Protein backbone atom coordinates (compact mmCIF):
# COMPACT_ATOMS: atom_id res chain seq x y z
CA UNK A 1 0.00 0.00 0.00
CA UNK A 2 1.25 3.40 -0.96
CA UNK A 3 2.16 5.82 1.78
CA UNK A 4 -0.08 8.85 2.27
CA UNK A 5 1.88 12.05 2.68
CA UNK A 6 0.74 15.36 4.02
CA UNK A 7 0.27 17.22 0.75
CA UNK A 8 -0.37 20.53 2.46
CA UNK A 9 2.92 20.31 4.33
CA UNK A 10 4.78 19.44 1.16
CA UNK A 11 3.23 22.42 -0.60
CA UNK A 12 4.01 24.78 2.26
CA UNK A 13 7.60 23.49 2.37
CA UNK A 14 8.07 24.10 -1.34
CA UNK A 15 6.44 27.52 -1.12
CA UNK A 16 8.77 28.36 1.80
CA UNK A 17 5.89 28.84 4.20
CA UNK A 18 7.24 26.60 6.99
CA UNK A 19 8.99 28.28 9.90
CA UNK A 20 12.63 27.39 10.50
CA UNK A 21 11.91 24.67 13.09
CA UNK A 22 9.21 23.03 10.94
CA UNK A 23 11.47 23.27 7.93
CA UNK A 24 14.43 21.59 9.60
CA UNK A 25 12.23 18.83 11.00
CA UNK A 26 10.68 18.25 7.59
CA UNK A 27 14.05 18.17 5.84
CA UNK A 28 15.20 15.57 8.35
CA UNK A 29 12.19 13.44 7.42
CA UNK A 30 12.99 13.87 3.73
CA UNK A 31 16.55 12.69 4.31
CA UNK A 32 15.28 9.59 6.08
CA UNK A 33 12.39 8.73 3.76
CA UNK A 34 13.21 8.16 0.13
CA UNK A 35 9.54 7.96 -0.87
CA UNK A 36 8.81 11.28 0.82
CA UNK A 37 11.82 12.80 -0.95
CA UNK A 38 10.47 11.48 -4.22
CA UNK A 39 7.00 12.89 -3.46
CA UNK A 40 8.46 16.30 -2.60
CA UNK A 41 10.41 16.24 -5.86
CA UNK A 42 7.26 15.33 -7.76
CA UNK A 43 5.35 18.21 -6.15
CA UNK A 44 8.21 20.66 -6.78
CA UNK A 45 8.50 19.89 -10.49
CA UNK A 46 4.73 19.72 -10.94
CA UNK A 47 4.16 23.06 -9.23
CA UNK A 48 6.95 24.55 -11.29
CA UNK A 49 5.52 23.13 -14.52
CA UNK A 50 2.10 24.55 -13.62
CA UNK A 51 3.75 27.91 -12.97
CA UNK A 52 5.38 27.94 -16.44
CA UNK A 53 2.19 26.76 -18.09
CA UNK A 54 0.26 29.44 -16.18
CA UNK A 55 2.54 32.20 -17.49
CA UNK A 56 2.08 30.94 -21.06
CA UNK A 57 -1.70 30.73 -20.69
CA UNK A 58 -1.81 34.23 -19.19
CA UNK A 59 0.12 35.57 -22.18
CA UNK A 60 -2.25 33.73 -24.52
CA UNK A 61 -5.29 35.14 -22.72
CA UNK A 62 -3.95 38.68 -23.06
CA UNK A 63 -3.21 38.14 -26.73
CA UNK A 64 -6.64 36.64 -27.32
CA UNK A 65 -8.25 39.64 -25.58
CA UNK A 66 -6.42 41.88 -28.02
CA UNK A 67 -7.70 39.76 -30.90
CA UNK A 68 -4.26 38.38 -31.75
CA UNK A 69 -5.47 34.96 -32.86
CA UNK A 70 -8.50 36.42 -34.62
CA UNK A 71 -6.13 38.92 -36.22
CA UNK A 72 -4.18 36.01 -37.68
CA UNK A 73 -7.31 35.00 -39.49
CA UNK A 74 -7.98 38.51 -40.70
CA UNK A 75 -4.38 38.93 -41.78
CA UNK A 76 -4.55 35.67 -43.64
CA UNK A 77 -7.75 36.86 -45.27
CA UNK A 78 -6.05 40.08 -46.28
CA UNK A 79 -3.13 38.10 -47.64
CA UNK A 80 -5.41 35.93 -49.71
CA UNK A 81 -7.25 39.01 -50.95
CA UNK A 82 -3.95 40.67 -51.78
CA UNK A 83 -2.74 37.61 -53.67
CA UNK A 84 -6.03 37.29 -55.52
CA UNK A 85 -5.96 40.98 -56.41
CA UNK A 86 -2.36 40.76 -57.59
CA UNK A 87 -3.16 37.74 -59.77
CA UNK A 88 -6.28 39.43 -61.13
CA UNK A 89 -4.30 42.59 -61.84
CA UNK A 90 -1.60 40.57 -63.63
CA UNK A 91 -4.20 38.77 -65.76
CA UNK A 92 -5.96 42.07 -66.49
CA UNK A 93 -2.63 43.65 -67.46
CA UNK A 94 -1.84 40.76 -69.81
CA UNK A 95 -5.27 41.04 -71.39
CA UNK A 96 -4.84 44.79 -71.69
CA UNK A 97 -1.45 44.35 -73.38
CA UNK A 98 -2.96 41.71 -75.67
CA UNK A 99 -5.88 43.95 -76.48
CA UNK A 100 -3.58 46.90 -77.09
CA UNK A 101 -1.28 44.80 -79.28
CA UNK A 102 -4.23 43.44 -81.24
CA UNK A 103 -5.79 46.87 -81.53
CA UNK A 104 -2.59 48.51 -82.78
CA UNK A 105 -1.46 45.68 -85.06
CA UNK A 106 -4.48 43.68 -86.14
CA UNK A 107 -7.60 45.84 -85.94
CA UNK A 108 -9.69 46.58 -89.01
CA UNK A 109 -8.69 50.24 -88.76
CA UNK A 110 -4.99 49.37 -88.83
CA UNK A 111 -5.28 46.73 -91.53
CA UNK A 112 -7.35 49.07 -93.72
CA UNK A 113 -4.69 51.80 -93.77
CA UNK A 114 -3.16 52.18 -97.24
CA UNK A 115 0.48 52.91 -97.82
CA UNK A 116 0.80 56.28 -99.62
CA UNK A 117 3.46 54.60 -101.79
CA UNK A 118 0.61 52.89 -103.64
CA UNK A 119 0.02 56.16 -105.49
CA UNK A 120 3.66 57.19 -105.85
CA UNK A 121 3.77 56.92 -109.65
CA UNK A 122 0.36 58.57 -110.17
CA UNK A 123 1.19 61.41 -107.80
CA UNK A 124 4.41 62.21 -109.63
CA UNK A 125 2.69 62.28 -113.00
CA UNK A 126 -0.21 64.34 -111.66
CA UNK A 127 2.16 66.85 -110.06
CA UNK A 128 4.05 67.26 -113.32
CA UNK A 129 0.80 67.85 -115.23
CA UNK A 130 -0.47 70.28 -112.60
CA UNK A 131 2.80 72.21 -112.61
CA UNK A 132 2.64 72.57 -116.38
CA UNK A 133 -0.95 73.85 -116.10
CA UNK A 134 -2.46 70.88 -117.93
CA UNK A 135 -4.95 70.03 -115.17
CA UNK A 136 -7.93 71.83 -113.73
CA UNK A 137 -7.62 74.02 -110.66
CA UNK A 138 -9.86 71.62 -108.75
CA UNK A 139 -7.60 68.66 -109.55
CA UNK A 140 -4.58 70.70 -108.41
CA UNK A 141 -6.40 71.64 -105.23
CA UNK A 142 -7.20 67.97 -104.67
CA UNK A 143 -3.55 67.04 -105.10
CA UNK A 144 -2.51 69.73 -102.66
CA UNK A 145 -5.03 68.50 -100.09
CA UNK A 146 -3.79 64.94 -100.61
CA UNK A 147 -0.18 66.04 -100.06
CA UNK A 148 -1.26 67.83 -96.92
CA UNK A 149 -3.08 64.65 -95.85
CA UNK A 150 -6.34 66.56 -95.67
CA UNK A 151 -8.35 63.65 -97.02
CA UNK A 152 -11.80 65.13 -96.40
CA UNK A 153 -10.83 68.15 -98.46
CA UNK A 154 -9.22 65.91 -101.09
CA UNK A 155 -12.44 63.85 -101.23
CA UNK A 156 -14.44 66.95 -102.15
CA UNK A 157 -12.06 68.13 -104.88
CA UNK A 158 -11.65 64.73 -106.54
CA UNK A 159 -15.38 64.06 -106.29
CA UNK A 160 -15.91 67.24 -108.30
CA UNK A 161 -13.37 66.10 -110.89
CA UNK A 162 -15.06 62.69 -111.02
CA UNK A 163 -18.42 64.37 -111.55
CA UNK A 164 -17.03 66.41 -114.40
CA UNK A 165 -15.01 63.55 -115.94
CA UNK A 166 -16.35 60.17 -114.71
CA UNK A 167 -13.89 58.17 -116.83
CA UNK A 168 -10.83 59.96 -115.59
CA UNK A 169 -9.25 56.94 -113.86
CA UNK A 170 -6.37 58.83 -112.26
CA UNK A 171 -8.73 61.21 -110.43
CA UNK A 172 -10.87 58.22 -109.46
CA UNK A 173 -7.80 56.51 -108.00
CA UNK A 174 -6.98 59.56 -105.88
CA UNK A 175 -10.61 59.79 -104.84
CA UNK A 176 -10.65 56.13 -103.75
CA UNK A 177 -7.44 56.61 -101.83
CA UNK A 178 -8.89 59.71 -100.11
CA UNK A 179 -12.10 57.77 -99.39
CA UNK A 180 -10.07 55.10 -97.64
CA UNK A 181 -7.94 57.50 -95.66
CA UNK A 182 -11.01 59.41 -94.54
CA UNK A 183 -12.61 56.03 -93.63
CA UNK A 184 -15.41 56.38 -96.15
CA UNK A 185 -15.13 52.67 -96.94
CA UNK A 186 -18.42 52.30 -98.81
CA UNK A 187 -17.42 54.98 -101.32
CA UNK A 188 -13.93 53.44 -101.55
CA UNK A 189 -15.44 50.04 -102.39
CA UNK A 190 -17.68 51.50 -105.05
CA UNK A 191 -14.98 53.67 -106.62
CA UNK A 192 -12.34 50.93 -106.64
CA UNK A 193 -14.81 48.67 -108.41
CA UNK A 194 -15.39 51.42 -110.97
CA UNK A 195 -11.63 51.69 -111.60
CA UNK A 196 -11.42 47.92 -112.22
CA UNK A 197 -14.27 48.24 -114.71
CA UNK A 198 -12.83 51.28 -116.47
CA UNK A 199 -9.10 50.65 -116.58
CA UNK A 200 -7.27 48.53 -119.11
CA UNK A 201 -3.97 49.03 -117.32
CA UNK A 202 -2.96 45.99 -115.24
CA UNK A 203 -1.01 48.02 -112.72
CA UNK A 204 -3.99 50.36 -112.15
CA UNK A 205 -6.38 47.41 -111.82
CA UNK A 206 -4.08 45.80 -109.27
CA UNK A 207 -4.01 49.02 -107.26
CA UNK A 208 -7.81 49.22 -107.42
CA UNK A 209 -8.09 45.61 -106.22
CA UNK A 210 -5.76 46.35 -103.36
CA UNK A 211 -7.75 49.45 -102.40
CA UNK A 212 -10.98 47.42 -102.57
CA UNK A 213 -9.52 44.71 -100.37
CA UNK A 214 -8.45 47.33 -97.85
CA UNK A 215 -11.84 49.06 -97.99
CA UNK A 216 -13.58 45.74 -97.30
CA UNK A 217 -11.41 45.24 -94.21
CA UNK A 218 -12.19 48.78 -93.06
CA UNK A 219 -15.86 48.05 -93.47
CA UNK A 220 -15.48 44.99 -91.24
CA UNK A 221 -16.25 42.44 -93.96
CA UNK A 222 -12.85 41.47 -95.39
CA UNK A 223 -13.02 40.15 -98.91
CA UNK A 224 -10.90 37.13 -98.19
CA UNK A 225 -11.51 35.62 -101.63
CA UNK A 226 -10.11 38.72 -103.29
CA UNK A 227 -7.16 38.71 -100.89
CA UNK A 228 -6.56 35.03 -101.59
CA UNK A 229 -6.72 35.71 -105.31
CA UNK A 230 -4.10 38.47 -104.96
CA UNK A 231 -1.99 36.27 -102.68
CA UNK A 232 -2.02 33.46 -105.24
CA UNK A 233 -1.12 35.70 -108.18
CA UNK A 234 2.65 35.62 -108.62
CA UNK A 235 2.43 38.65 -110.93
CA UNK A 236 0.37 40.75 -108.54
CA UNK A 237 2.42 43.59 -107.08
CA UNK A 238 0.52 43.25 -103.77
CA UNK A 239 0.94 39.49 -103.45
CA UNK A 240 3.23 39.66 -100.43
CA UNK A 241 1.06 42.28 -98.72
CA UNK A 242 -2.06 40.20 -99.31
CA UNK A 243 -0.44 37.13 -97.76
CA UNK A 244 0.58 39.18 -94.73
CA UNK A 245 -2.91 40.62 -94.37
CA UNK A 246 -4.47 37.16 -94.60
CA UNK A 247 -2.21 35.94 -91.78
CA UNK A 248 -3.07 38.96 -89.70
CA UNK A 249 -6.78 38.48 -90.29
CA UNK A 250 -6.53 34.95 -88.87
CA UNK A 251 -4.29 35.96 -85.98
CA UNK A 252 -4.99 34.95 -82.39
CA UNK A 253 -4.44 38.53 -81.26
CA UNK A 254 -7.19 39.72 -83.53
CA UNK A 255 -9.63 37.57 -81.57
CA UNK A 256 -8.96 39.71 -78.49
CA UNK A 257 -10.44 42.74 -80.17
CA UNK A 258 -14.12 43.02 -79.34
Amino acid at each position, binding site marked *: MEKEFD*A*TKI*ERYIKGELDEVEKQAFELLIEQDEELAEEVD*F*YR*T*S*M*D*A*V*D*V*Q*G*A*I*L*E*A*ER*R*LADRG*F*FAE*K*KARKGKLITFRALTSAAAVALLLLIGWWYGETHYSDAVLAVVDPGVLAGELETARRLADSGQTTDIFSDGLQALQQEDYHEANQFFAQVDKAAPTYVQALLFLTYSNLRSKNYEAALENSQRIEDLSQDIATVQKAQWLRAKASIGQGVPEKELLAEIADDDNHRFQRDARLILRQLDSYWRKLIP
Partner: protein
Amino acid sequence: MRSDKSSDDQLMERLRHRDPHAIEQVYLQSFDRCAKVVLGDGGNKEDAKEVFQEAIFSLIIKLKNPEFAIKSNVGAYLRQSCFNIWVHAKRRARKLQVIDAGLIQMTEETSMDEEKSALEEKYERLYACLRKLTDACQRILDLSYYQKKKDKEIALLMDYTPEFVKNKRRRCMQSLRKYMTA
Protein backbone atom coordinates in the same frame (compact mmCIF):
# COMPACT_ATOMS: atom_id res chain seq x y z
CA MET B 1 10.52 40.71 -37.03
CA ARG B 2 14.29 40.33 -36.81
CA SER B 3 15.88 40.65 -33.44
CA ASP B 4 19.52 41.31 -32.65
CA LYS B 5 21.63 39.37 -30.19
CA SER B 6 21.36 41.79 -27.25
CA SER B 7 17.58 42.10 -27.46
CA ASP B 8 17.40 38.30 -27.75
CA ASP B 9 19.49 37.97 -24.59
CA GLN B 10 17.20 40.37 -22.77
CA LEU B 11 14.17 38.50 -24.00
CA MET B 12 15.58 35.17 -22.82
CA GLU B 13 16.36 36.64 -19.42
CA ARG B 14 12.76 37.76 -19.09
CA LEU B 15 11.56 34.35 -20.27
CA ARG B 16 13.76 32.74 -17.64
CA HIS B 17 11.70 34.69 -15.08
CA ARG B 18 8.47 33.58 -16.82
CA ASP B 19 7.43 37.13 -17.56
CA PRO B 20 4.07 36.86 -19.38
CA HIS B 21 4.86 40.08 -21.28
CA ALA B 22 8.02 38.47 -22.64
CA ILE B 23 5.99 35.42 -23.65
CA GLU B 24 3.55 37.75 -25.40
CA GLN B 25 6.46 39.31 -27.26
CA VAL B 26 7.63 35.88 -28.37
CA TYR B 27 4.15 35.10 -29.66
CA LEU B 28 4.08 38.33 -31.59
CA GLN B 29 7.51 37.71 -33.07
CA SER B 30 7.43 34.01 -33.78
CA PHE B 31 3.96 32.51 -33.76
CA ASP B 32 3.45 33.12 -37.46
CA ARG B 33 6.60 31.24 -38.40
CA CYS B 34 5.63 28.31 -36.22
CA ALA B 35 2.08 28.29 -37.54
CA LYS B 36 3.45 28.21 -41.07
CA VAL B 37 5.35 25.00 -40.27
CA VAL B 38 2.25 23.30 -38.86
CA LEU B 39 -0.31 24.64 -41.32
CA GLY B 40 2.01 23.81 -44.19
CA ASP B 41 2.17 20.19 -43.07
CA GLY B 42 -1.48 19.32 -42.69
CA GLY B 43 -2.09 20.83 -39.25
CA ASN B 44 -4.73 23.34 -38.25
CA LYS B 45 -4.69 26.51 -36.16
CA GLU B 46 -5.37 24.70 -32.89
CA ASP B 47 -2.47 22.35 -33.63
CA ALA B 48 -0.28 25.37 -34.28
CA LYS B 49 -1.27 26.95 -30.97
CA GLU B 50 -0.59 23.76 -29.03
CA VAL B 51 2.73 23.20 -30.74
CA PHE B 52 3.82 26.76 -30.05
CA GLN B 53 2.76 26.50 -26.39
CA GLU B 54 4.86 23.39 -26.01
CA ALA B 55 7.81 25.01 -27.76
CA ILE B 56 7.75 27.99 -25.38
CA PHE B 57 7.30 25.71 -22.39
CA SER B 58 10.27 23.67 -23.46
CA LEU B 59 12.37 26.80 -24.02
CA ILE B 60 11.57 28.17 -20.56
CA ILE B 61 12.51 24.85 -18.98
CA LYS B 62 15.77 24.80 -20.93
CA LEU B 63 16.49 28.29 -19.63
CA LYS B 64 16.62 26.83 -16.12
CA ASN B 65 20.06 25.66 -17.15
CA PRO B 66 22.31 28.76 -16.94
CA GLU B 67 24.62 27.29 -19.59
CA PHE B 68 21.89 26.96 -22.15
CA ALA B 69 22.42 29.25 -25.14
CA ILE B 70 20.71 29.66 -28.50
CA LYS B 71 23.10 29.69 -31.45
CA SER B 72 20.90 31.60 -33.89
CA ASN B 73 17.99 33.60 -32.45
CA VAL B 74 14.84 32.94 -30.48
CA GLY B 75 12.63 33.02 -33.59
CA ALA B 76 14.72 30.50 -35.52
CA TYR B 77 15.08 28.30 -32.44
CA LEU B 78 11.33 28.22 -31.86
CA ARG B 79 10.64 27.50 -35.51
CA GLN B 80 12.93 24.48 -35.38
CA SER B 81 11.43 23.48 -32.07
CA CYS B 82 7.92 23.71 -33.51
CA PHE B 83 8.98 21.52 -36.40
CA ASN B 84 10.37 18.88 -34.04
CA ILE B 85 7.32 18.93 -31.77
CA TRP B 86 5.01 18.70 -34.75
CA VAL B 87 6.90 15.75 -36.21
CA HIS B 88 6.79 14.00 -32.82
CA ALA B 89 3.08 14.70 -32.46
CA LYS B 90 2.39 13.27 -35.89
CA ARG B 91 4.48 10.25 -35.11
CA ARG B 92 2.60 9.72 -31.90
CA ALA B 93 -0.65 9.92 -33.79
CA ARG B 94 0.76 7.38 -36.22
CA LYS B 95 0.09 9.81 -38.99
CA LEU B 96 3.66 9.92 -40.07
CA GLN B 97 3.93 6.86 -42.26
CA VAL B 98 6.34 7.93 -44.89
CA ILE B 99 9.64 9.59 -44.25
CA ASP B 100 10.23 11.78 -47.23
CA ALA B 101 12.95 14.13 -48.26
CA GLY B 102 11.18 16.95 -46.47
CA LEU B 103 12.14 15.48 -43.14
CA ILE B 104 15.85 15.94 -43.51
CA GLN B 105 15.66 18.18 -40.46
CA MET B 106 14.98 15.04 -38.44
CA THR B 107 18.74 14.76 -38.08
CA GLU B 108 18.80 18.04 -36.21
CA GLU B 109 15.83 16.95 -34.19
CA THR B 110 17.58 13.75 -33.15
CA SER B 111 20.64 15.62 -32.07
CA MET B 112 18.43 17.95 -30.05
CA ASP B 113 16.75 14.98 -28.46
CA GLU B 114 20.09 13.59 -27.40
CA GLU B 115 20.93 16.85 -25.71
CA LYS B 116 17.78 16.74 -23.59
CA SER B 117 18.49 16.30 -19.91
CA ALA B 118 16.53 13.97 -17.67
CA LEU B 119 15.03 17.04 -16.05
CA GLU B 120 13.83 18.40 -19.38
CA GLU B 121 12.28 15.06 -20.25
CA LYS B 122 10.54 14.99 -16.91
CA TYR B 123 9.07 18.44 -17.49
CA GLU B 124 8.01 17.47 -20.98
CA ARG B 125 6.16 14.46 -19.62
CA LEU B 126 4.63 16.66 -16.95
CA TYR B 127 3.50 19.15 -19.55
CA ALA B 128 1.79 16.38 -21.52
CA CYS B 129 0.20 14.88 -18.39
CA LEU B 130 -1.05 18.23 -17.11
CA ARG B 131 -3.02 18.58 -20.31
CA LYS B 132 -4.70 15.24 -19.67
CA LEU B 133 -6.21 16.47 -16.40
CA THR B 134 -9.83 17.58 -16.24
CA ASP B 135 -10.58 21.27 -16.73
CA ALA B 136 -11.48 21.60 -13.03
CA CYS B 137 -8.14 20.08 -12.00
CA GLN B 138 -6.20 22.28 -14.40
CA ARG B 139 -7.99 25.34 -13.03
CA ILE B 140 -7.41 24.44 -9.39
CA LEU B 141 -3.72 23.80 -10.02
CA ASP B 142 -3.39 27.04 -12.02
CA LEU B 143 -5.12 29.07 -9.29
CA SER B 144 -3.04 27.41 -6.56
CA TYR B 145 0.42 27.09 -8.08
CA TYR B 146 0.55 29.85 -10.71
CA GLN B 147 -1.79 32.52 -9.38
CA LYS B 148 -0.80 31.58 -5.80
CA LYS B 149 -4.32 32.03 -4.50
CA LYS B 150 -5.37 30.82 -1.06
CA ASP B 151 -7.84 27.94 -0.79
CA LYS B 152 -10.46 30.35 0.54
CA GLU B 153 -10.17 32.52 -2.59
CA ILE B 154 -10.27 29.49 -4.88
CA ALA B 155 -13.32 28.20 -3.02
CA LEU B 156 -15.10 31.49 -3.70
CA LEU B 157 -14.12 31.48 -7.36
CA MET B 158 -15.14 27.87 -7.96
CA ASP B 159 -18.06 27.72 -5.61
CA TYR B 160 -16.41 25.02 -3.44
CA THR B 161 -15.54 24.88 0.25
CA PRO B 162 -11.87 25.49 1.16
CA GLU B 163 -11.65 21.94 2.50
CA PHE B 164 -12.96 20.59 -0.80
CA VAL B 165 -10.39 22.67 -2.68
CA LYS B 166 -7.59 21.17 -0.61
CA ASN B 167 -8.83 17.61 -1.17
CA LYS B 168 -9.60 18.19 -4.81
CA ARG B 169 -6.09 19.53 -5.41
CA ARG B 170 -4.60 16.48 -3.68
CA ARG B 171 -6.68 14.17 -5.87
CA CYS B 172 -5.66 16.12 -8.96
CA MET B 173 -2.01 15.66 -8.02
CA GLN B 174 -2.63 11.94 -7.54
CA SER B 175 -4.13 11.78 -11.01
CA LEU B 176 -1.14 13.61 -12.38
CA ARG B 177 1.17 11.13 -10.71
CA LYS B 178 -0.79 8.23 -12.19
CA TYR B 179 -0.44 9.73 -15.67
CA MET B 180 3.27 10.21 -15.05
CA THR B 181 3.85 6.61 -14.04
CA ALA B 182 1.51 5.12 -16.64
